[in-house]
């Protein structure tokens, strides 16, 4: 549903339209579409009621005797205070029952694909589980097939986080010790941005992620590639970068499938070069961003839990970055 045109005065104030990669008014998911419709319904009806009440108040304050007599009569109280609310709210309630009831248009996840998202401080551990039980670990980005309802299991490894992709669905908390379930169904291919919606510490504002919805065949191909081992570096810089990566303590916390890096404390880096962003959507994904993160991580994302790593020379950083960038 496009932005309602009656809001021209408001639109003058906010010159950008309602579309946006993180806009709840530009839904691209099944649940977000229902929320969007309900929201506009409530907004418009509430505004109508507000306008009516303001008019009545104005009439009561400044109106002629005749108008004031009309307003203070019993008919307005019974009609506007009893009949109208009962009617309107009963209609809304029935609509709500229709949306939420057993035969509702909400799809249920069919078990072919499940995504487990664990909230960490301050990044997202994402694991895709397909119907054969194969687990593919990734981080900080979620990819979904268009049109298929996918079950998402949410939990947390430390403090309470909250999973929120406004274009796809509403919020759901990620609570340590408990698994909450959500169904995500993307209705359009494209990129949406999500955010952690529960304060979880200093870097909470930098804990975001992208959700990329792709057509089914592209998604199947992508999942196959993601499940595979890391690319073997070819160039001189990249090979030197791999040697640096494997010998500078990075493997204690990170994993790159296909090498001896099998750490689980930090994000999985097997295909980090192909992600849409770095550091939980804090940095654009390009070669220099890797160097910036490794050397200045504390300034990019203050208080994050990766130790400061400024032990490399400029040349070594460039080699490391080119290695990480080619892990696609």
């Amino acid at each position, binding site marked *: 549903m496009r932005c309602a045109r009656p809001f021209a005065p408001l639109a003058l104030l906010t010159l950008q339209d309602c579309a946006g990669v993180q806009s709840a008014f530009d839904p691209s998911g099944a*649940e977000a579409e229902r929320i969007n419709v309900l929201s506009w319904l409530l907004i418009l009806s509430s505004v109508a009621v507000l306008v009516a009440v303001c008019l009545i108040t104005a009439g009561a304050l400044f109106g002629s005797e005749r108008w004031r007599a009309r307003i203070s009569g019993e008919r307005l*109280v*019974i009609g506007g*205070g*009893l009949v109208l*609310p*009962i009617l309107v*709210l*009963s209609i809304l*309630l029935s609509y709500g*029952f229709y949306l*939420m*009831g*057993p035969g509702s248009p*909400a799809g249920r996840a069919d078990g072919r694909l499940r995504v487990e998202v664990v909230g960490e401080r301050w990044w997202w551990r994402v694991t895709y589980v397909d119907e054969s039980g194969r687990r593919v670990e990734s981080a900080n980005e979620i990819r979904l097939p268009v049109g298929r309802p996918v079950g998402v299991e949410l939990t947390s490894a430390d403090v309470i986080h909250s999973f929120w992709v406004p274009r796809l*669905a*509403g919020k*759901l908390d990620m609570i340590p010790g408990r698994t909450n*379930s*959500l*169904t995500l169904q993307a209705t359009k291919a494209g990129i949406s941005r999500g955010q952690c919606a529960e304060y979880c510490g200093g870097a909470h504002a930098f804990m975001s992620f992208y959700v990329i919805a792709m057509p089914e065949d592209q998604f199947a191909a992508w999942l196959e590639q993601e499940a595979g081992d890391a690319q073997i570096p070819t160039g001189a810089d990249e090979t030197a970068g791999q040697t640096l990566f494997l010998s500078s303590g990075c493997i204690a916390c990170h994993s790159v499938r296909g090498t001896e890096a099998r750490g689980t404390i930090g994000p999985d880096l097997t295909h980090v070069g192909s992600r849409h962003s770095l550091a939980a959507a804090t940095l654009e994904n390009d070669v220099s961003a890797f160097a910036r993160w490794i050397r200045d991580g504390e300034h990019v994302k203050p208080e994050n839990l990766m130790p400061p790593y400024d032990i490399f020379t400029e040349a070594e950083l460039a080699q490391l970055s080119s290695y990480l960038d080619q892990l696609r």
Partner: protein
Amino acid sequence: MKEPAPQPVREPPVASAILFLLTGPILWAGHLTLVYAFQSVTCAIGAFPSAATVIPAFVALATLVAAMVLLVAIWAPGRLTRYRSERGENQTFLRAVSRLLSVLSLTGVLWTGSAAFALDACGRLR
């Protein structure tokens, strides 16, 4: 001989006026609390098989009881809570307001009760 001092008019306390007016909403709030608490606790302690029948049954019972009490409040506002003012016209107005609020509360109670039959008892709605 001096005239006897006029008797001071003793108004009943304000709290009883509020209670009289808000009989309906208070009953509605109590009904909602009971239904919400019962459903939440029953679903939280584990969805045992009989939840699908126990919850609607309890909600139906609570709704029935609340509806009957509210009907009494509508028909005779003075039966449940007492408020007597000296001035006559106040009494009419107060009774009318109490009745109207009770009517609204009755619809509220019926709305809440109907949800038990329209939706899954412990359904995961997302």
